[in-house]
């Protein structure tokens, strides 16, 4: 497909015009290091550049609290499966988060399909945004192969100085911008500028840990008893932050919330975390991952091994959120590095 | 004609906290007439010892859930006084807004849920649901709106979160202000209906002039958040001299301390405030007063409830103006204060002695903290409005009982209960602060 150019001073018109069709969500700044995806009304409210938002855009595909079912027992035990959704545009998604969405797409379209997720997914337009430089020291996107775009968007924006070069990847993306007469076709110098950005990035983005990506399966293959698990397990507070902010975590709990009439109500899905104490506890009281070290290890294996075995894809995007948010400063990069150290 | 009565109302209902009324009259002679405070003591002043001055607000808010915002406001005032922090004009305005909502909320609770059942002759608001369904709905709606405004401003009404020494941890954004404005606008018609309701109520006739004590200041506004201590009987005093006003003393029958200033007792609360500061009311509140036939000085304690209606109008009016003002001039978000900053001793603390004086819904409220050089509290003292009123209530009862002694025991009991309730006593507060001074230090 095509490339077009958006002058930066037209970003506002771009957003305003988009909004005429769909609500637009984008990264906004809410005080100290707090970036979140939220609805915006114009371009000025958008914070770019930004460090990864507290929660990744997955909240628009699988909200923190989500109604799955509505019921009224006066009508018996039958129920209505409902999806609450909004057709919207997510603007400014970093490449790591694009990868995160792709990861979720894969698991949740695996049979049995998660129709709630897929329903929303088909109603969200995604506009990616390239990082010309690292957001901060927590990222490991190059190691995970996500510092460059690999699909997963309708439109993709790269900052080439005075303007954004927009790569149009889908028909849906094309249609979204059809009537925007302030967009110009990209000329060869624009493409050159993009190439310049990419070659500069080559200089900046290097493996963040002294490990090759292909080595990772091996590290985990033999690392199950590595002392690093006990070490981070001892430091972990089981606050669940690392999983709740992760773009590829999708564990959940399902519960019923009756209304005050005690007859009608909703069945909701809420994000859950394998780091929480009761997560693997059964009704008789046994917990199958009672030790924090077991839970930490489980999380890492879900990112780097288990899903890889199933779906041939890493379930870490390198966004750095888990390390950024950990009050105990358990760091993903350090953990991988430690795993590489062979223990005598 | 039961000239000999023995009344013992245990666990007086529809007041905040536990109190008993004890009346003993024989052959027309009043032997005993007490308002016993039986609330379990909670030792707040003791618990504050050794705590950081920055924690005082969080802890003292828990003295009373009904006027948690007032305790919060007086606590931060005392803490700032001790630390030598001057709040910014924006902070003061927001605090005034918070206090307006607190007083409004508390007055609505008292007028509708606690006093109205007596005046409408039913056992409680629950019976009102049947007989005065719309009225109850209105009351709950009004309370909810006050709460919703507090939720936006400070996180919640009971034990506010965002109001701390130094300012606010969170400041309303423009959309928050707009939301508050909508809420307050929505309250207006219910407020009109409240005044209409008040017009239909009739109150027992009983007069006893006493001393009235409330905050006074030189500003143009009805003083609630700050000022000197004013009295109907005497000169104006600085808040630091509060002890000379309260002159607390203990009596054997009560866990609350009694207070007296220029006479045997004094009253605080809506009536006192109106008797002292009537002229500073906004026109809307003044008009309400005229409509309700309220002309200060008013010496009938039962009319405290009417005073609360007038103050409710005043607070709503004042709060609305503050919000409008912020909408017009904006909020400086840079004034947000970071909580817990002092964990590593980043803020200058000093040995100091700070006093806060705020008009809580039930009257003037004092907190006084003395800190050491590390900002730890070495002494704390809190004087609660109801504690100041108890003495006055007993004086009222002593004056009232002989006049109504010819009535049936049930009637006497009701009259006394209504009298006590008219003061809207917050016994939980006062019992928490039965204060006596360190004997052994």
């Amino acid at each position, binding site marked *: 497909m095509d490339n077009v150019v958006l002058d930066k001073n037209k970003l506002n018109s771009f957003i305003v015009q988009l909004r005429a069709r769909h609500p637009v969500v984008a990264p906004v700044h809410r005080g100290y290091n707090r970036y979140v995806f939220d609805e915006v009304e114009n371009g000025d409210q958008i914070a770019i550049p930004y460090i990864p938002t507290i929660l990744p855009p997955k909240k628009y595909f699988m909200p*923190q609290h989500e109604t799955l079912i509505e019921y009224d027992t006066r009508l018996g035990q039958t129920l209505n499966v409902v999806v609450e959704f909004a057709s919207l545009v997510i603007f400014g998604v970093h490449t790591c988060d694009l990868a995160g969405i792709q990861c979720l797409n894969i698991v949740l379209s695996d049979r049995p399909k998660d129709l709630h997720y897929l329903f929303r997914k088909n109603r969200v337009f995604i506009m990616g945004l390239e990082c010309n430089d690292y957001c901060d020291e927590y990222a490991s996107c190059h190691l995970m192969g996500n510092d460059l775009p690999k699909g997963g968007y309708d439109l993709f924006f790269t900052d080439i100085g005075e303007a954004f070069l927009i790569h149009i990847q889908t028909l849906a993306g094309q249609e979204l911008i059809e009537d925007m007469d302030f967009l110009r076709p990209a000329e060869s110098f624009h493409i050159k500028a993009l190439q310049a950005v990419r070659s500069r990035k080559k200089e900046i983005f290097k493996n963040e840990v002294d490990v090759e990506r292909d080595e990772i399966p091996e590290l985990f293959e033999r690392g199950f008893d590595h002392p690093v698990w006990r070490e981070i397990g001892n430091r972990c507070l089981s606050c669940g932050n690392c999983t709740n902010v992760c773009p590829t975590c999708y564990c959940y709990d399902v519960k019923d919330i009756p209304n005050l009439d*005690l007859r009608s109500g909703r069945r909701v899905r809420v994000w859950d975390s394998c780091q929480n104490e009761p997560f693997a506890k059964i009704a008789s009281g046994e917990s199958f991952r009672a030790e924090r070290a077991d839970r930490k290890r489980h999380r890492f294996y879900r990112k780097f091994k288990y899903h890889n075995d199933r779906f041939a894809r890493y379930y870490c995007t390198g966004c750095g959120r888990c390390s950024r948010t950990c009050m105990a400063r358990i760091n993903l990069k350090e953990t991988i590095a430690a795993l590489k150290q062979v223990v005598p | 004609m039961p000239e000999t009565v023995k009344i013992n109302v245990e666990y007086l209902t529809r007041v905040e906290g536990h109190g008993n009324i004890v009346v003993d009259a024989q052959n027309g002679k009043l032997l005993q007439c007490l308002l016993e405070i039986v609330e379990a003591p909670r030792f707040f002043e003791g*618990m504050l010892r050794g705590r950081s001055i920055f924690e005082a607000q969080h802890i003292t808010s828990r003295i009373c859930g*009904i006027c948690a915002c007032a305790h919060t406001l007086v606590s931060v005032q005392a803490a700032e006084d001790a630390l030598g922090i001057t709040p910014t004009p924006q902070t003061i305005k927001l605090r005034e807004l918070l206090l307006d909502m607190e007083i409004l909320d508390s007055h609505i609770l008292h007028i509708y849920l606690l006093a109205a059942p007596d005046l409408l002759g039913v056992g*409680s608001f629950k019976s009102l649901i049947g007989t005065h369904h719309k009225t109850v709905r209105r009351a709950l709606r009004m309370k*909810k709106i006050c709460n919703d405004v507090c939720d936006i401003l400070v996180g919640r009404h009971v034990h506010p979160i965002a109001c701390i020494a130094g300012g606010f941890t969170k400041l309303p954004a423009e959309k928050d202000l707009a939301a508050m404005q909508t809420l307050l606008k929505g309250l207006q018609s219910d407020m009109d209906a409240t005044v209409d309701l008040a017009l239909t109520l009739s109150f027992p006739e009983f007069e006893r002039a006493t001393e009235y004590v409330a905050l006074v200041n030189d500003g143009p506004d009805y003083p609630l958040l700050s000022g000197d201590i004013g009295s109907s009987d005497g000169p104006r005093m600085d808040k630091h001299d509060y002890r000379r006003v309260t002159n607390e003393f203990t009596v054997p029958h009560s866990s609350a301390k009694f207070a007296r200033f220029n006479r045997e007792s004094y009253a605080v609360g809506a009536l006192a405030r109106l008797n002292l500061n009537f002229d500073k009311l906004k026109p809307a509140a003044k008009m309400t007063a005229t409509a309700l036939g309220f002309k200060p000085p008013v010496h009938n304690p039962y009319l405290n409830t009417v005073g609360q209606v007038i103050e409710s109008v005043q607070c709503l009016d004042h709060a609305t103006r503050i919000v409008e003002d912020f909408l017009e001039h904006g909020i400086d978000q840079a004034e947000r204060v970071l909580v817990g900053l002092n964990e590593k001793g980043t803020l200058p603390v000093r040995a100091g002695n700070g006093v806060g004086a705020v008009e809580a819904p039930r009257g003037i409220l004092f907190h006084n903290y003395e800190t050491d050089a590390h900002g730890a509290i070495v002494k704390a003292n809190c004087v609660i409005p109801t504690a100041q009123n108890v003495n006055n209530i007993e004086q009222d009862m002593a004056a009232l009982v002989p006049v109504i002694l010819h009535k049936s025991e049930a009637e006497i009991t009701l009259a006394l209960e209504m009298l006590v309730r008219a003061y809207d006593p917050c016994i939980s507060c006062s019992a928490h602060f039965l204060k006596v001074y360190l004997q052994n230090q």
Partner: protein
Amino acid sequence: MITKPNVAFFDFACCEGCQLQVANLGEQLLDLLDIIEVVEFREVMSEKWDGIYDVAVIEGSITTPHALERIERIRQRSKILIAYGSCATIGGVNGMKNHFELPDIRGYVYGGAADAYPTMATRAVHQAVKVDYFVHGCPVYPPEFLEVLKCVLAGVPYHVPDAAVCVECKLNENVCMYERGIACLGPVTRAGCNSWCINNDNICYGCRGMVSNPAQNAMRSVLEMYGIPLEFIVRKMDMYNTCRELDEHA
């Protein structure tokens, strides 16, 4: 539900703020009154009831011998008993006094008249009588109270979340206080309040009590890492959780 269950509210040593949260439900309170029959609620009602309570809602801590007798009597007359608010569920702020020698604190507050005011170490309600349901929080979080009440009426258990407040804090997209070098009790405090305080840019004070398996050593190292004196956090922990000691020694 054929007949509405009788529900009574009782207060012990507390600030009554949690009871007020019921009135603060607004018009929703009327929906609530459609499904329960409030038979006693001293704060707003004069009526008394002398039958058996289907549900007794207890606010406040047990701090005097008289209160202990009273709660025992209420227990005997109640089918279901709910501890309501932190003072009742974990002792709450009233527990702070347990750290002072009792005669000392009584003397401080009452001076010579101290003996007139009998008191004992603060106890949470479950440390005095059997409790069927817990509604934590200072004050209670009204949506959680309604959840518990619905469980009571349906006759099913309510599971107090045994995950950290942090979980809700992150779902609400707050920046962690530790990122700003400020100590927060979220990691050791049980969730259920929707991270109320942090949403308002304050810290968690631990009012809901601790999770079943708090990572105490890890917590200590975290504080060390951020240069926060341990004594600071211990003091903060004490604010609500002193009575926990009674459970541990039980």
